[in-house]
């Protein structure tokens, strides 16, 4: 649920001086940010560490925050993307494309495989395996339902560039899941 923009701007201004107001911002955005971070890391402990990092960074930097016409959440997501990248830089992801493909059942229709909830982890493992910018764009779009413009603001890209990232990301996912090969074979 989005806060009314005027109220949010007012709240952010108050949060620069008022702990209660920062607490209110936290209450409102914690779930979104945690979910996004968890979607990217899929590890509770790591997600908690990175979420903590995001909000402490936000607290330290909120005095310099200036409303840009985008929701406050865009700024938090921006911090999250950086914190996640830092985390990846310091620790290799545990999932791999090989493991994602190895357990897929080739006897079932390929697209149906993805529907199976048991394959959910493999689908998102395929996203984890994408280049960082594609991965972030895909997660923000399909994990968080953000608008292309918001994603562009978060990643510092134009809307067109975000479209390209998602387009390439989608092809990458299909490749990693073997869907493209199968489709070609069916044709």
């Amino acid at each position, binding site marked *: 649920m989005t806060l009314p923009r005027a109220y949010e701007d007012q709240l952010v201004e108050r949060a620069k001086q008022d*702990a*209660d107001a920062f*607490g209110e911002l936290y209450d409102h955005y914690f779930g979104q940010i*945690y979910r996004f971070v968890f*979607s990217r890391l899929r590890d509770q402990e790591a997600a908690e560490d990175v979420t903590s990092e995001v909000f402490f960074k936000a*607290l330290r930097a909120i005095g310099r925050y200036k409303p840009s016409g985008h929701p406050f959440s865009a700024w938090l997501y921006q911090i999250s993307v950086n914190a996640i990248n830092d985390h990846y830089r310091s620790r290799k992801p545990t999932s791999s494309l090989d493991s994602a493909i190895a357990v897929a059942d080739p006897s079932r229709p390929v697209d149906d495989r993805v529907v199976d909830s048991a394959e959910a982890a493999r689908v*998102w493992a395929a996203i984890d395996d994408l280049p960082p910018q594609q991965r972030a764009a895909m997660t923000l*779009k399909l994990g968080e339902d953000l608008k292309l413009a918001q994603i562009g603001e978060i990643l510092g890209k134009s809307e067109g560039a975000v479209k390209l990232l998602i387009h390439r990301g989608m092809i990458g996912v299909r490749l990693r899941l073997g869907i493209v090969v199968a489709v070609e074979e069916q044709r």
Partner: protein
Amino acid sequence: MSWMGGWFDPELEDLFHDEPELLETAQRVRAARPAVEPDPRFQNRLRAQLVAEAASGRGARGVRRWWRLGPAHFAWGGTLVGAALITATVLTFVSNHTVDRTVTAFSQLSAQHSVSPNQVITVAFNQPMNEQAVEAGVHIQPAIKVSFSWKNNDLVISPAYHLSANTPYIVTIAQTAIKALSGASAAADINIAFGTAPTPPPGPVAPPSLNPIALGSNGTGGSLLYAPYGSLFSTVGLLPQSATASPSPTVAGAPSTPSANPTSTPEGGSSQAPDVPGGLVEYPSSGTPSSFGSSPSAAAFSPNGGRYLALAIDDGNSGSRIITERSDDGRQRVTLIDSPTPVTALTWASSDRIVYTDGTTINSVDVSKAVALLYTVPAGSGTITALAAGGSYAYIAPSSGTDGSLLDVLRGTEQVLKGAAGDVSFSGDGATVAWIDESVHPARLLTETVGQNAPAVLPMPDSTASPSDVVLDGKGNEAAYISTDSSGIAELVVAQLPSGTPLAIESPSNATQLTLSAGGDQVAFISNSAGGAAIEQATVPGANPNVSGPQIPPGANQTLQRFVQAQVGHGGQPDFVALEALSAAGVNAAAITPPDLSRAYVISTYLVPQGVGASIELIVDPNAGHTTARVALETVMLAAGDTGYVVTSVVPSPLRDESAGPHVVQVSPSTSGGVTTLKVSFDSDLNPSTVAAAISVLTESGSTLPSTAVYNPDTRTATVTIANAPSGTLILNIASTLADFEGQTLASSFSTKVGASS
């Protein structure tokens, strides 16, 4: 247009317009996104750390995760609707400059918005303490009896009974008592502030069985519902032939679906004569079932009480006829309207107005036959399958997949109920909704206060089992559901809300159509076997006895609850839009609502000639600028308007500092067998010897009624019994001689109106 589980993203639709295979992959990736449930302990802990750091003013300087507060300072968290104040998680006192002489105290309850009333209070010190001295310095407000124990350097404070629900607490340890064995002492008092969740006390540890009895046979389909006076009704009941030897003239038409069962009887034995369709059949708690008319497609009892129903019956022309039928004193049937489409659900919005749906539209009709279209579901957007009592909310089942939505009928806005695919259940007062979240495996049971968009998971006795068929009681205090384990064994569970504590577990034969009575003391269901469908009913152990309270219309209760929520609002600001929408013209509730409210609750409700009255407690939790909770008492009046109940009058008292003595939390009236009882709940452990003499009950005209009062220390409740009380409004008075166990008395005499029915 591309849909997957109700999801549609026009941007992706546009992006992949020429590549449908990519769009399909996008939809399926989204459908597979992980379900994430953050650990609330982590969420609360992080919040406390952030708020404390922000309060210390060090956020921007990069100091993090550990902080020091000056003596006697509180660091307060933000206020949430219905949530508690928060104080610093860590309080550090420095008595001199050496580390050895620094006393650090830590409480696990700090920064908790919603502490379980069953929680113990732990204060962890960083060094061995003079235990006796520390214990002697502990003071808790409201006053509760506690015992102390120590685990290493941790002081564990255990309430003798339990904490009160929905209450702000302040635990103070006097500075003079904080003495370490090393000789270190604190420079200031320790103040630990937290608040409790509105959780009822736990039920029995080992839930008993239900021991249901068969009331009669049932046809196919239909539904069960309880009358306010305790009888159970089936919309497709079967009657023994003996009961229909002289057919009731009101059995206007037999349902086409019920299948007569030649073997079942109300006693569950064999009978030579087959049962016959009885239409809407009443099964009294004792006595013979009787037909009440033809089978309706929907039925609801009037909030006025008695045998007064709104029914939707087949009009013989592919539509429904909505009628009201009263049979308390001779049968009176009034046709209100013929709907050209079949009516699938209806409810009373007030004592003279009915809201109904055909799955696509929601309409209203009043007893003067005036009709109004309230809402139309956009084509392809799902089907309305349930109306909340009062008609303010409805459930829209999705066309496919999960994520059905809760519709605010008046605003026309929808809120997704996560993972909802099948039907949902509303409580009898329309204030709580429960549903099965089928987006996770195993499915889980969620509940929330309607309109708050804050679902809570109901813990189940078997966490690996799948729930189904959930129903709620009249006030959302209990739920009944079927729990099916991984081997397919199904059990019927009756549990308290919101704790999920089971009151009873039963293993009936293929139970369906679960129904709870308004008070949650009875549960009924259809038991399906090869021999047919039997209607069974059982008393719920541990639930309240079968009593009737004043019939506050559900619509009024809904409006009242929403009004109180709107007064608290968010971030210290009332919800101005909601207050205006819920108030009659000329009532400027926002202007007279005290600022910075943290919580509010309804103490009592009562019927008045113009509608409904209520006593409300408004609370401002302590904050950095005012370290004592402030309270105001408010009287609210509601009356039925064109679109439901609205607030017609709001009179709050000025805010004052909450006194140190006991406070009344709630007054609940009920009447059974001509005896009226008032359950008066307090927040403090009382001195029992002061209770009876302090409580008196008067009629509205001021005549004192003979009454007795018995105090139960386990529940902090005084049960006031009045024999032969007149029906209507009573006045409960509590004198300021009432005292808690520490001798602190009520700050001033307390008086409130309560409704009673005889």
